[in-house]
Each structure stands twice: as structure tokens, then as C-alpha cells.
């Protein structure tokens, strides 16, 4: 996501984060309705947050031949990647949240330990997962191939799992912390 606001002609500079992604919420409501995740909870880290659907935007070059991708900001909430799974269907449920700046919802994510519970709330009930892996991925100087390998953590998987992502450490954000929880 974009951390510096693009220059706009708005009369007052925006001090608050970008407006909520209402179009994507509308799309998710139409396609997934009550199946969506409403909140995430990691009791061991004292994390409780609402969950909103997130996708990505492409900032196209003028000729549309290439462009820069950026993930949507979940603002103060935790984002559920719309192309990932939902609890009732198995597969990889990908969630990410801010660690500084806009919000600090996942500031303590790196403190997760194997065995911690991750609870996802849908209208159908609570889905419980247990943390199995906590990975720290160095991003500084990572090449395209490495980034593609990291990005695979957000791709569909055959097994049911929750993948939680945030930046680390809070001062420099040179790494990503990836927490994988399984039912």
C-alpha cells in the first residue's frame, strides 16, 4: 500500500488514512455474504480486530504495458485477501494488518508462538486455528524471484490454514513476519 499520499487538488491535505474500500466491500458482500470473516482474535497477543476485504490496485503506465501493484490498506482493521480462502472451504486464508503508521493492530504479531490460538469469527460461528510456524522473511535486497517465493505464502494452498502477515521490526520494517496457523 501507498505510504505517501499522492498530490491531490483537494482543498485540505488529508491527514487521515485513505477512505474505506466501499466498492470492494460491496463486491465481497455480493459474492460471499455471510461467509465472510468478521473478526480475528489472537488472545495470547491481546489482538482483537475487525476484518475487511482487501485486494490490490495497479498504477498503470500510460500505455498500460506495465504498472506497479500495491495492496489495499486495511486501515485500522485486518485485511482479508479476497482471492484467498474462507474458513468454510479449506485452503489458505490470508490476512494482513498494519504494524505502525496507520494502525498498530499487528504490531505484536511477531511475538506469536507455536500453540497460540487464532480465532476467526463468521456469522456461522468461531473457527479455531493453532499457530504452527512463525517466519521472519528478510525483504531488504530481495530479488524478484525471492519476492515471488514469499508471495506464495498468500497463494491458495491445498491444506486448510490461516496465514497472517505484517512488517517487522517496527522501526525499520526490513522484514515480513508470516504466521501460519492450522485447524
Amino acid at each position, binding site marked *: *500500500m501507498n*505510504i505517501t499520499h499522492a498530490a491531490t487538488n483537494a482543498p485540505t491535505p488529508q491527514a487521515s488514512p485513505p477512505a474505506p*474500500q466501499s*466498492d*470492494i466491500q460491496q*463486491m*465481497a458482500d*455480493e*459474492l*460471499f*455474504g455471510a*461467509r465472510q470473516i468478521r473478526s480475528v482474535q489472537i488472545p495470547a497477543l491481546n489482538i482483537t480486530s475487525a476484518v475487511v*476485504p482487501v*485486494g*490490490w*490496485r*495497479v498504477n*498503470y503506465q500510460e*500505455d*498500460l*504495458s*506495465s*504498472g*506497479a*501493484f*500495491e*495492496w*489495499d490498506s486495511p486501515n485500522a482493521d485486518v485485511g482479508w485477501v*479476497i*482471492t484467498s480462502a474462507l474458513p*468454510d*472451504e479449506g485452503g489458505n486464508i490470508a490476512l*494482513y*494488518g*498494519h*504494524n*505502525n*503508521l*496507520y494502525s498498530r493492530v*499487528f504490531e505484536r504479531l511477531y511475538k506469536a508462538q507455536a500453540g497460540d490460538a487464532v480465532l476467526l469469527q463468521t456469522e*456461522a460461528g468461531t473457527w479455531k486455528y493453532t499457530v504452527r510456524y512463525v517466519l521472519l*522473511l528478510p525483504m531488504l535486497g530481495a530479488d*524478484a*524471484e525471492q*519476492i*515471488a517465493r*514469499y*508471495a506464495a*505464502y*498468500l*497463494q491458495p494452498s491445498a491444506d486448510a490454514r490461516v496465514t497472517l*502477515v*505484517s*512488517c517487522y521490526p*517496527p*522501526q*525499520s*520494517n*526490513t522484514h*515480513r513476519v508470516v504466521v501460519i496457523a492450522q485447524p
Partner: protein
Amino acid sequence: MRRIFLLSLLLLALLPAPARAREVLDSNAEFVPGQLIVLFKTGKKTKDLRLPAQASVAAKKSSGLEKLGAAVINVPVGQERAYLAKLAQDKNIRAVEFNYLIKAALVPNDSAYALQYAPHLMQADTAWDAVNGAGVTLAIIDSGIDPAHPEFSGRILPGYDFIEGDATPQDGCGHGTHVAGIAAAETNNAQGIAGIAWQANILPVRVLDDLCSGSYEGVASALVWAVDHGADVINLSLGGYSPSALLENATYYAYARGVALFAAAGNDGIATTVYPAAYNWVMALGSVNNVPERAGTSNFGAMIDLTAPGENIYSTFPTYDGFAYRTYLGLAKNYDTLSGTSMATAQASGAAALLLSSGSACYSTPDQIYQALINSALDAGIPGRDDEYGYGVIQINAALAECPAAPPAPATFTTQYDWMRSDRCGLSAYAWRDTSGGVEQVSLGNEGYKNIAAPFPLTLGSVTYNNITLHANGFISMGSANTTTTSAAGNYRENAALPGIAKPNNLLAPFWDDLTDPGSAHLYTLTSGSAPNREFIVEYKNYQRAGVSGSALNFEVVFFENNADFLFQYKTLKGAGADGSSATVGIESENGLAGFQHSFNLKHALKEGLAIRFTPYPSGSAALPSAACPQTVAITLPAGTPRLCAAAEGEFDIEISGGALAYATTWKAEQLAAPLNALPASLLDIQRYADLSLRYEPPYAMLSALPSTNVCYHYAASDLLAAGGHAENLFITAYTNNVWQPLPTTVDAGRSLLLANAPHFSEYSVAALNPNAADENQLGMPVTGAPVRWDAMILLLTVMILFIRLWQRAAQPSSR
């Protein structure tokens, strides 16, 4: 010393590296890299294909695949899955599949147990008084054979080698020679072992390489070759876990020409399905020991037909060194022991050859041979057929006393069918039939079915039925033969391409997929109207795709008393996969050899408000019923009228925004299910395509430019989902000068439209930049924070401290 050293170096260079051998012997690779197999629709050939870029038809190794209506396509290595999806959309192709690897079915075993218990256990020794296999051709499709082994003297027919493409099927593995010995080694020759059909002629066909591995394509080619070269019995001591339309057709090719087939169940000791053993027309062999008890490694399940001795079987090996089983497993040359369902299969093939050599008319078809072996088998395990032993252990002498009747041939389609969609053809309009006041059909159960009487005789493929069977998984089978349509265990049978010989057959499939009842599903039937113009309606209401809560399907099949058409209608298709992307839609004959498929696992194939009408027409008729209905109706845009986009969701249209047309214009938009030209990998294909044409013809010599014309696309929520959730990520693209050219696109969110100025009219599509291309522009990991600028903060702090000091210094004099 030096000489010996050199020699051993040379030997090492000639032999395959052991590491590679191990890798291949226990390889996890699924299929041959860079290859796909396509099966054509009836009458179609390789030249009809529109291959995507970088795909080509592989050089033909034999005429076998051609006879099966199949071909190998070379595709870029590592992109087999992507090309599989692309090729599946070719209208000329019935099925596309990987060229799966296939392996010899044995358990490597170093036991020195050398007692030949099998001939006696199977009553071969008593049968030998009457029969010996003479005059029967037994094809061994395997790793080849050592023709120099004295046990085969004078009985090896000229074979073929599909690994090297020559006429010398040498054995570099050892498996083929072992299997051949079990089935047909010389008996009564005072040496070695006794084969079951010891006077049979052996037709060796090599499909497994020096590391005992091969491909489905090789096995299929070999099956056709063996049949065409006079095989009476075919031994297939090999198998794979992936089903394959190619292997299905190839084995059926043999069976339909009167050849009995025996195949191994595999040696992983699990309940599973192995191909080709699992096909109905192939006998699947499990393995037993000398007790007889099922070998622990012998696979089991509904496919098992028979069992035969496979544990510790002593048989022939090549007379030379350097075959894989000797090099890597240390087995002896000339003779040694192996275990597995491969060995059991060879015993069964030998048994079939013995029956055939009796010359009796009782064994003139494969079904009669199978029935004789089944009726006479020694029951083991649970009484009757069971999943561990099948019908039991083969008893050859008892089988010789059996004389089964030849079964009647099943009916096939003698009429052809054509289908028409309501959105493409005025002859097939959507008109939903309400079933209220009808009968609710209950207690089908999940994966279940229910047989009901039809209100009037129903015709499918010129066969008339008075009963039909309704299935919970979205299809209807004609007649009441339930066993042809559900598996023994009552599990969901994966939906397949039509036609396919594997069951279920004889069906109408409006939405064959794994469906469940969320608690609110209903199945209604209603007979409406009055004779002789009645209609019979079957409605599936509120069904759900298994595992997709929130999905809802409501569709119906209409039968007509006054004609033999079938109408499929779709009222509600909600939720992931409801567009037919994991369903089979079509009809199929009783034996599965004929069928007419609308779509198979095709995205966007179905939509709400769609009707598909299947209409019969005489075989050989030149004109298809759908020829009377143009694919798309051209619209005349009158002069003086602007046009607003009228595209339905997922479709393209035009919008003339720059003023009214000065002259009447013809507009035609054909929405395509598959692209005529594949999109490049750099683009995320949203899989919506259309062929657009606009004929703007001002009178001669009258210069009048076409007003600014936009192509519009009405996006659906599922399109946004695929493209990151934002309509701004999408653009319209036009096929221009042989490339897909992205067009500057604007979003009209209020009308859910993408609009782009049309440079010309041709094939159009919708795409976004592919986020997963592994380059510096990829989507990658989210950034969830910003680095804190410590350097800037320290600088600021330093400046502030300096400023304070200066201020203090300046302030000091005044304080004095």
C-alpha cells in the same frame, strides 16, 4: 591394474547413474514434462486445432494414437497446467490430459524363496492335462523381453519397442522377462520353471524403459499395436493412479475387438483406484500368497475383480547382466523371485490363454473369459465378492468347466443431437416452467438417486424408456439401471467429459457436479398440458455445490411428449462455481460411446436465464438444426439515434457517445465462451471474450466519419474478484495486428461498465496486469508500515539543541 581401472570407468559411463535410477524408480513426477494428450471430437483431426502460441503437434510415433482419435501436443516445460486449460477450450477437443507416468507394479523383494506354489494353487497343473496355451497370442506390454532365454525358445513373435521406436523390444529392466515367464515359460522342459500357458506365443511390446518407467501414451500406443498384431490376451502388469480418457479409449479399443485384458491393482496396500485396472472391461488383479491370503501390499477396493498368486514368485530374468533389477536391486540373472500384483496379473493372463487354447466357443468374447474365471474362482475373505479378493482366487481347471453365455451388446446412439443456447439462438427461448403443484421426490440422499416412472415414453438416442432415475448430483439417467450410475461405495463420482465409457452413462446432465442439500433442497416433478402434447418437468431447487455454503442452484429439465428434444433451463446460479466451471453439461448414450457435450468444467458456460435445447437429427444429415439459427442476430442501428450500452453482465456491446449515427449501421456482437486467440501470460485473463463487428457504410462518395464509438463491457462481481477487487485494475483489450492491445479504459461505476474507444472491430477481451508475473513489478508481499526516519529525527533534534543553546547564550547577558 591400470587397464582394469580404465575398464571400470568405461562401465560407469555406460550405466545410468544409480542416483538417477533411484529417482526414477521412486519418482514423484506425475507426468511427462512438456507433453499433453488431446482427444478429438468425432471427425476432428490435428489440422483442425487452433493451437496456442508455443504449442505444437508432436511427431507421430505410430498410428495407434490416431486410431484412438488422440495426439500428443508439445508445450513449454513447466506450463503444462496452463496449456491444459487453454487447450480444453478448443471446440475440436473432447478432452485434454497430462501424459501421466506409469510404472511396473511390483514390490522389490530379495527373498530367496524359490518354491513354485502358484501353478498348483491355481489348478494349472490339473488343467495342463487338457490345455497348454498353444495357438494363443499373449501380448506382454511391459519392459520388453530377453528373447535368448531358453524358456521362451521358438515362441516369441516379432514385437515392438515404443521407447526407442524400433522392432527390438529388449528388456533393460527385467520386469517384462519375469512377467512373461510366469505367464508362458516352457513347462516340461526339465529346467527352470513352469509357466501357466506354456505353449502360448508371446508378443512382446516394450513401453517401460531401462529404469522400468513409461507413459500413458506409450501404453495406449502399445495396446493398439498389440491388437492390430493379433493379440488374443493382453497382460498389463503396470498402472497409474490418474484416470485418463486416452487409456480408457485404448483399453476399450482392445476389448471391443475381442481381446481379454488383465491389469495389476498396484502395490501400495491401500484402498484406491488404479488405471487401467479399474476400467470395467479390464480384469483388475490383486495378489495373494500361498495360503492364500491377500498380500499386505496388494491394493484393494471396488475395482478388484480377481486375485492370483503374486507373493514370492520365482520366474525368468534376462540371461545377461546390466538390467535394472540386477544393477540396482542385486537380483540374479536367469531366474529370481519377485512379488506384487504384476506377478498375479501374469498368472491371470496365462489362465486366460489356457481357456482360449481349448478352442471352445464358450470363451469367444472377453466377457465370457472373465465370467468363466469369476464363476469358478475360489472364494476368499468375506463370502461372495469383496474388496480384498474380488470374486476370489483363480481356479483354472474349474474355469474350464464353465460355459458363460455371450451377453447382448448395449444400445448406442443412432441419432445425432445438436444443442442451441437461448442467448445465441431464437429457436431455443428461455421459458421457465413452474413445478408448483407437482410431486416432491424425496429421500434421494446425498450422492443418491431415485427411480421414478415417466408419465409418457421418453426417447434418448432412439431407445425408449418408461422409467428414469433422478440423481442428487445434478443428472438424470434413463431407465432404472441404478448400478450403472453410482459407485459401489456411494461416493461422488467425479464429473467427466462426455462421451466417456466410464460410468455413469445413459444420462442427461444439466449440472453434473458434486451437489448437496443444505437442508432446503427440493426435487420436484410435474406433468403439464394434455396428451399428446404433455411436458414432463424435473426441477432441482435450492441445491448447493458441495463445500460452497451460500451457493444456490435452481435448474430444470423439460421432456416433451410430441418430440424428442430436451430442454435444460437455469433460473438461479449463485455462488462460486455456479457458472459451470466445475460441472458437466450434456447428454450421453447407454454404452458411453456417443454423447453431446455442451461444456465440461468451463468457466462462464452457464448463466441465469439460460436455456439449452438438445434436438435430435438423423445421422449423416448435412444440416444441423442449429444451422437454422445464426450464432448472433445482427442489430440494425437506425440513423439519427445514439446508442447506450446494453450489455448484460459479463458481455460486450457498443456505446455511441459522440453523437447520433448519420447512416443506418449493422451491429453484431458474438459473446465467445473461449478466445480465438490466447492472451499472453503477462495479462490476467478474466476469461470474457467477444467477436464484435460494426458495419458502417455511408453511401458512396459521401464522406461521413463514424461518431466516436466505445466498446463497453458490463463487469460482474466475479470479474472484480479476479482482478484485485477494483474495476480500475481492469481494461478492455482488442486483438490488433496479431497481438492483444490494451485500450485506455474508463470505469462507469454507476452502470458497472468499462468503456474504451474502439480502434477497430475484431476480437475483444477484458484483462488486468498479471500480479503474479515473477518480475520487479509483481504484487509481492503487503507493506504494512513505514520505516521511522531516525536519521531525520536525530538531525532535527541536533538543530533544536543548537538553537536552544544559542538562544540561552544570547539571553545570558540580559540576565546579568
